């Protein structure tokens, strides 16, 4: 029997708090889960620094990847035998679902921004490079690794396959919303996924939703909207993210200045030099990063030491609402005041905008800008969701962005009471 068709003697199951069970019968899937590259995902949290706000949010990208695989597996059971669906693509879909986040690094949002990296590039490199994952995929077919990479990169020829893994209503989002809600403990993020899976239909090159399932999709969109503001953009998480980014910036800056670290940043050197190879990338997980932060807390450089203590002990920056348009002059004044009192504003005065986090809620856009969610009407026409649903239309048009100014209030308060700068800083921040 060809490797691609090999089945396990008995179905394996993973107990899962969101989907109850994740079912595996394909030998290929079982083998992929066992690779070091996939197991590494256990050591990368799904929500980065969110655990500092919601202490339950310790779940990993491993859990999520299994969840996405399970959702796609269930969707495909529903698709079997339907027109427009080619079941020969089944294993490709399952592999792409399982491996779609393979290239995520530790705290990947901050790492990507600071070191100008792209986790999608690393996903591709792991799938196509000299890795255990690549070995397994090649056993299916020599062209198979490239196909899996193309699906994840959204450049595969069959767009229907792509849209299962990546579209406005895909297995990825359906899993992370429910999983993140479960682990953070919030009461948002729930929707009737079983219903959505039942009303999904393959139509030509996209997955659409039967019109009768519109209300289930409304619930899903609302859940995205609420999770976005209640969890993903939580201001405390953003504070931790700000400090994390500043630690990485500072460490890179010190390295470039030939600073002599007491604890050599061996794992980071290729990151600092902008030349990260796959081996180095895979060696760096969140446990390693947190270990460095503990060590750097004792560095003689007062900035990196302070920032690492803050991150490790959760002594985060405070924040105030900030409007960069109306408060432009105050910003410039604060910047000078911070510098004057010895708090480097490059590290201690940070404006953070909500869009700096990589989650989105539903935006229909204009024609041919991006693929919207389409409803399949009883007469077989397709209609864009927000044209049919008042609820979705209402939140699609609703613009809400958020800017906050982060700073170490403890440092400001520790300035001498007779300091004019202190009085003025507090006056601006409290205004």
């Amino acid at each position, binding site marked *: 029997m060809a490797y691609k068709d090999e089945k396990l003697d008995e179905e394996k199951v993973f107990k899962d708090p969101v989907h109850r069970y994740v079912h595996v019968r394909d030998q290929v899937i079982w083998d992929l889960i066992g690779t070091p590259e996939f197991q590494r995902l256990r050591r990368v949290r799904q929500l980065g620094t969110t655990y500092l706000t919601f202490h339950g949010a310790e779940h990993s990208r491993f859990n999520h990847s299994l969840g996405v695989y399970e959702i796609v597996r269930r969707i495909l059971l529903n698709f079997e035998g339907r027109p427009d669906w080619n079941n020969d693509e089944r294993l490709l879909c399952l592999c792409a679902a399982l491996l779609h986040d393979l290239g995520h690094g530790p705290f990947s949002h901050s790492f990507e921004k600071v070191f100008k990296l792209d986790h999608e590039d690393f996903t591709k490199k792991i799938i196509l490079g000299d890795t255990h994952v690549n070995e397994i995929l090649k056993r299916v077919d020599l062209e198979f690794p490239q196909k899996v990479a193309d699906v994840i990169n959204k450049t595969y*020829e069959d767009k229907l396959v792509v849209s299962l893994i990546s579209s406005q209503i895909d297995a990825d989002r359906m899993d992370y919303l429910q999983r993140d809600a479960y682990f953070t403990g919030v009461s948002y993020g729930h929707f009737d996924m079983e219903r959505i899976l039942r009303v999904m239909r393959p139509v030509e090159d996209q997955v659409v939703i039967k019109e009768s399932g519109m209300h289930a999709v409304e619930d899903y969109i609302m859940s995205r909207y609420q999770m976005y503001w209640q969890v993903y953009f939580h201001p405390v998480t953003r504070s931790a993210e700000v400090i994390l980014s500043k630690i990485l910036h500072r460490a890179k800056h010190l390295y470039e200045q030939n600073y002599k670290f007491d604890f050599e940043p061996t794992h980071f050197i290729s990151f600092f030099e902008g030349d990260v190879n796959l081996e180095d990338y895979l060696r760096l997980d969140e446990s390693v990063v947190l270990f460095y932060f503990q060590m750097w807390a004792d560095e003689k450089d007062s900035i990196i030491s302070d920032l690492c203590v803050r991150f490790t002990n959760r002594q985060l920056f405070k924040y105030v609402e900030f409007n960069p*348009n109306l408060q432009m002059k105050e910003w410039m004044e604060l910047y000078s005041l911070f510098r004057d009192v010895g708090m480097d504003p490059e590290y201690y005065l940070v404006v953070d905008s909500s869009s700096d986090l990589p989650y989105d809620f539903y935006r229909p856009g*204009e024609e041919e800008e991006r693929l919207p969610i389409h409803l399949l009407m009883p007469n077989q026409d397709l209609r864009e969701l927000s044209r049919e649903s008042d609820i979705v239309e209402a939140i699609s048009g609703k613009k809400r962005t958020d800017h906050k100014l982060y700073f170490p209030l403890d440092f400001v308060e520790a300035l001498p009471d007779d300091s004019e700068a202190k009085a003025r800083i507090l006056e601006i921040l409290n205004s």
Partner: protein
Amino acid sequence: MLANHAKLMKFFSASEEVVGRKKLQKMIYILKKCGVPYDEKYEFHFYGPYSEELTLRIEELCNLGFISEVKEDKSNYYQYRYGMTQQGEEFLNHSQVELPPIEDKIEKMKEKSSRFLELVSTMLYFDDLTKAEIEEKIQVVKKKSNYTSKDLEEAWQFIEQIQH
């Protein structure tokens, strides 16, 4: 402060007016591929390279009153028209962000249709492949767009002009 926003404001300052979100998305992507340091992350979507971050940042600039967005109903879809406001100009004046010259490139792109810019940006997305492989890839990922060999030739010339 808001360096990424300021870089985008430089674009609006140089372009005066941009019609269509898709066109805007592709223009920024093409500039990025010309070495202009825009940090917005792009992924490949149904209609070529697309950046969710850019969408969000544009939304923020609108909310801040730095750019204006006019929504026009085209019966089957909406179209958006963007321009810089007085407040946006003031913000840009306070900003210390520097970019390489982009005016000529923007002029060249403004003359082109969004369909053409979609082709150009898609070709640039695959710029790690050979010319023949890129053309083959276009036929795979843009099957429905029916780009002709003449379109491809024109796009290659355009890329040559704009990148040099």
